[in-house]
């Protein structure tokens, strides 16, 4: 028994560590007085250790052996230590780390730095990791709630700005609503199969020992709930408002890691329920559901991209395009194959780096009142701020899906899996919408490179620590573009 406890402790070290430290950090907030730098460094240290430990477990493949271990004495089988869990741990960790590094000078410029910012980001990350490690619907739900509530608080963090408070309010009201759907759906899935554990659910479905009506209703509701979280059409309307109103670095975090977490939840549902149920006799409804999902995915891509065209505000443009990217990821879920999940995960990972990078740039150029976000403010940037301009090129080209940046391979992989799964039309919609997205990303590029500066870009300084965020995310965007096979092979191996 003791042996097994130690084993689980070492397996679950990243998640246990970050949850414990997150709570500790909150307590720490109360006692450290006015000194914020300690919390900042502490948060960075926690995240680094988490990333390293998850990475170590991943590369030493320590967990493989653990799959055979039936008893997890600490979590009673509610935590899973296999599949993509550790990959997503690393992704979430890096996203949080990049956000926190960039956040400090941003908050300082806005003259609004409070300690709980850092602890909240760490807590959100532990919530996401809870989703990544959940072996059980209820734990997944709690992880999502955990993450969402921290997000509501973070979105309204700039409580002196009307837009921020308003963002929090909209996010919160609609998010709470979504959680209701999610919970309801989970209850129905429980009703259908009599269990909440993913493994048992798939066993029951394979054995045809379930109630089809509840299952379908349940899955539908869970999908609606999760569509909110990834901001898929028509549940996307909160996203632009929230990403626009929230502090810019947080928008980067919400729209990437938050989306990746929800995508992972969708993968869990897909893998353990949809994929199994589609092989049963009564699979017609599942196929219908898949088709509905395909339509939603197509609509998400189109609506996100088409609305992004009309934007003259960079932050809002990124917000809308983020909706479209959710559509691309959803294609992997629609495909409903191991390849599709790997594709969606790869895309989510890549998206984290490019989107956080571009939001960090927006954050750097923003002034203390959150102004200077229009396209026209970016004109001639290549002369005034060459470093930032060069970084932005990498991110924008990658977001637009232009080879050889990582975004292209993400898209390619997704398109390929969709065609494999017989959704040629969806791929064509994807292609059309990528073309639309090329327009507005390149439009920003034209402002940055092809236009002369009309007005001097304000008093913001060159990035200091945020420069690391930019460099790391740009490096990862390029590296994942030149050597994507490592991550892809890992994903395929772990399916």
């Amino acid at each position, binding site marked *: 028994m003791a042996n097994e406890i130690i084993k689980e402790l070492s397996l679950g070290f990243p998640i246990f560590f970050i949850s414990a430290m997150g709570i500790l950090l909150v307590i720490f907030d109360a006692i450290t007085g006015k000194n914020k730098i300690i919390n900042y460094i502490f948060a960075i240290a926690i995240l680094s250790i988490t990333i390293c430990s998850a990475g170590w477990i991943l590369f030493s493949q320590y967990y493989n052996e653990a799959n055979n271990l039936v008893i997890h004495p600490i979590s*009673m089988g509610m935590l899973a230590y296999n599949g993509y869990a550790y990959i997503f741990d690393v992704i979430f960790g890096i996203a949080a780390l990049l956000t926190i590094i960039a956040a400090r000078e941003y908050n300082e410029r806005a003259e609004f730095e409070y300690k709980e910012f850092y602890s909240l980001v760490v807590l959100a990350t532990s919530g996401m990791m809870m989703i990544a490690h959940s072996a059980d619907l209820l734990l997944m739900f709690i992880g999502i709630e*955990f993450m969402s509530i921290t997000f509501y608080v973070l979105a309204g963090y700039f409580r002196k700005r009307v837009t921020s408070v308003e963002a929090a309010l909209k996010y919160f009201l609609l998010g709470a609503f979504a959680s209701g759907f999610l919970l309801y759906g989970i209850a129905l899935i429980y009703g259908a199969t009599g*269990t909440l554990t993913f493994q048992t659910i798939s066993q029951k479905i394979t054995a045809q020992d379930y109630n089809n*009506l509840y299952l379908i209703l349940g899955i539908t509701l869970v999908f609606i709930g999760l569509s909110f979280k990834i901001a898929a059409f028509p549940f996307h309307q909160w996203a632009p408002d929230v990403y626009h109103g929230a502090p810019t670095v947080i928008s980067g975090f919400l729209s990437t890691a938050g989306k990746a977490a929800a995508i992972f939840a969708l993968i869990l549902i897909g893998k353990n329920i949809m994929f199994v149920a589609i092989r049963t006799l009564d699979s017609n409804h599942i196929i219908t559901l898949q088709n509905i999902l395909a339509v939603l995915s197509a609509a998400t891509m189109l609506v996100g991209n088409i609305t992004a065209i009309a934007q003259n505000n960079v932050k809002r443009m990124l917000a809308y395009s983020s909706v479209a990217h959710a559509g691309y990821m959803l294609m992997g879920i629609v495909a409903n194959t191991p390849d599709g999940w790997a594709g969606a995960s790869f895309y989510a990972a890549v998206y984290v780096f490019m989107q956080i990078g571009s939001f960090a740039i927006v954050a750097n150029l923003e002034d203390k009142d959150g102004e200077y976000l229009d396209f026209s403010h970016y004109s001639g940037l290549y002369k005034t701020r060459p470093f930032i301009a060069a970084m932005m090129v990498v991110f924008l080209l990658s977001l637009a899906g232009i080879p050889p940046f990582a975004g292209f391979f993400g898209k390619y992989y997704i398109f390929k899996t969709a065609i494999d799964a017989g959704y040629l039309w969806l791929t064509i919609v994807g292609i059309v919408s990528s073309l639309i997205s090329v327009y507005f990303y390149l439009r920003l590029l034209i402002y940055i490179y092809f236009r002369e500066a009309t007005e001097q870009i304000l008093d913001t300084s060159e990035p200091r620590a945020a420069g690391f965020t930019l460099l790391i995310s740009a490096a990862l965007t390029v590296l994942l573009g030149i050597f994507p096979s490592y991550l892809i*092979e890992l994903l395929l191996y772990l399916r």
Partner: protein
Amino acid sequence: MLIAVLSGFIVACIVPLIFKLNRKVAGALLSILPLSLFIFYLQFLPNVLAGEKILTTFYWIPSLKINLNFMIDGLNLLFALIISGIGFVVYLYASAYLAKSEKIVPFYIYISIFMASMLGVVTCNNTLALFVFWELTSISSFLLIGFNHEQERSRYAALQSLLVTAGGGLALLASVIIIGQIAGTYEISQMSAFHSNLINNALYPSILILFLIGTFTKSAQFPFHFWLPNAMEAPTPVSAYLHSATMVKAGVFLMIKFLPILGGTELWMWLLGGFGGWTMLMASTMALKQTDLKRLLAYSTVSVLGTLTMLIGLGGEKAISAMIIYLFAHSLYKGALFLTAGIIDHETGTRDIRNISGLRKYLPITALIGVLAALSGMGIIPFIGFIGKEMLYETALLSGQYSTLFITISVISAVNIFAVMAYSGILPFFGEYKSPSEHVHEAPFQMTSGPVAFALLGLVSGLFAGSTVDGLTNKALQSIFPSASHHLALFHGFNLPLLLSALTIVVGLIFVLNRKSLVEFIEKIRIPEYFFPSKWYDYIFNGTLSFAEIQTKFLQNGHLRYYIFTILALFILLVGGSFFGFNTSGSILNAFAISIERSIAGIDIYDISMLITVLIASVFALLSQGRLSAIASMGIVGALISLIYIIYGAPDLAMTQLSIETLSVILFVLVLYKLPRFFTYSKLKTRIRDLVIALAFGSIFTMIIIFVSAYGKFDTGLSEYFAQTSYLIGHGKNIVNVILVDFRGFDTMGEITVLSIAAVGVYSLLRLRKQGGEQ
């Protein structure tokens, strides 16, 4: 070979460094790159002439089947040589042409990237890697067209060309993926084995159309041709290199490569022959009325590309051999003509052919180049252009039942091209001297040497066709038709093509001499604007923009309740829909019956009174004007629900519900007590609409419960397990409690954390007031 392709990218990175070291010789220094590439590819010539294929493999992304496999066969080598050879000339030319421009550094960066990617396109054997290079050429073309970015027109043209070509590229990607799916390989050299699988597949039409959208956009075929004339905003060396000699031929290149893979069908022939022929005819006619030297050349390029496409569509051995010669000749003379146009522009400051004439006085070498190149383009014996045109006529004559059609349009276009060549390469140099600029003098050596070489090569390769280009073009032909061979000769005897050539020259001369009346005649043909594909582009572009705005205003109006409204509407559609999906043989009505029947026995006075109280309290909450009364009715509803929990055997729930309800009422009252009364914000109509939606939603809830209670219960396996083991394992008799703290203790932990985060959130929202920071 990988290094050869990547060298361009590497050099692109060090361009700024070279310019920092020595600005004067940097351009010349950089031209070593294309020259050495040319020599590198030239060393494969003996092997290729011996009939070998050189293959190299480099695994890039094996999991996605994207590998950097390169292949050199006759066709690839021909293209690689053209690209690096013309590249050398253009590098050298630009070092003088842009010597004074401060943007010379980005120019060399972009063009190096372009050359590398273009070499990638023509030597890559893996379709996916090819696509990567393909898109990179579009991007570098975009950057080069937008080179003079101070001008609105430049930016417009750059974006237009990118949207058209990159969009086409994406269509190509889709077709390549499907082909890969069907053939099971992404290697071009292995695909032709699956020819019959592909053309008999049900997806063949979509594959072909997607494929052709990709190649047509790149090679500026109707209806995507409009971007090419606009792309003339780029500096002239770029137009010469990308937009006449190399990049626009990438589409043609891919079409020949895929002829043995997708070709040989009626559909192939009609799509390529039809669009190619029409492009050829239309563009050559449009070219006649142009006055800008570069646009003149651009339209003639489009026309030639149309010819090439048509020839690939016809698709026999003869057609392909004609196509290869025609393409080779075109690269030489068009490159030379563009570079001449650049010199004229550089020296006189204008490109309008109406303002310049008699330049040979001051630009003798340029004049020589212009004339030689134009003669080749006109198809005058003994230039290589003549051979190309003869072969074109020959093929058109042999093209079966529609040969009359093909030969007619070929001759008309040839006549037009004849005139266009004369306008652009000969007329500016003859007649009375006229130039807007005073100081016209011959261009430096770097600018003239390359075009001279092209012009002379056009003559030499024509005169000695049998001994010079014959070998390589034969191998190029054989990489498509392994058993075919051709023998090039200047003179094939007196035959119909020769007669047609003579006719072309005669009519062409008439056109040349009567330019004014010809242009007047063409201008008389009025075609409504909306027939032009370039207008379609504008319509689609602007239409999308205004649609985006309308859609944004509609969907994204910032009003929270409309968001909720949309969601509800869709939810009703989705869940209601999936619900009725199960409605076989009136089972919903049946469910009602069953449920009522089953429940009626159990209903007692408590149930009824509860129902009525809930109803009254809810209605009161909806209608009340005062905040306190609304909150009070909320509290009443909460209390009633805890009563329900008590009645139905859930005392734990009842306790929690009651205490929480009390707490939240207190909270509400504390925070909200001093707020004003509710206002009635919305109109009656809105309220009725909202009520209808809400009712629909409420009834779905009701229906679900009724359905569930009528048709089978929840699976309670797990509950039974808990009931059995809660005392034995968990040592507790209240099962709910045991579940919460023991079986699912982890969830409860999470729940507590969620609560604490909420507390942090509340704290962080409210603390500001305490500090008095912002009010």
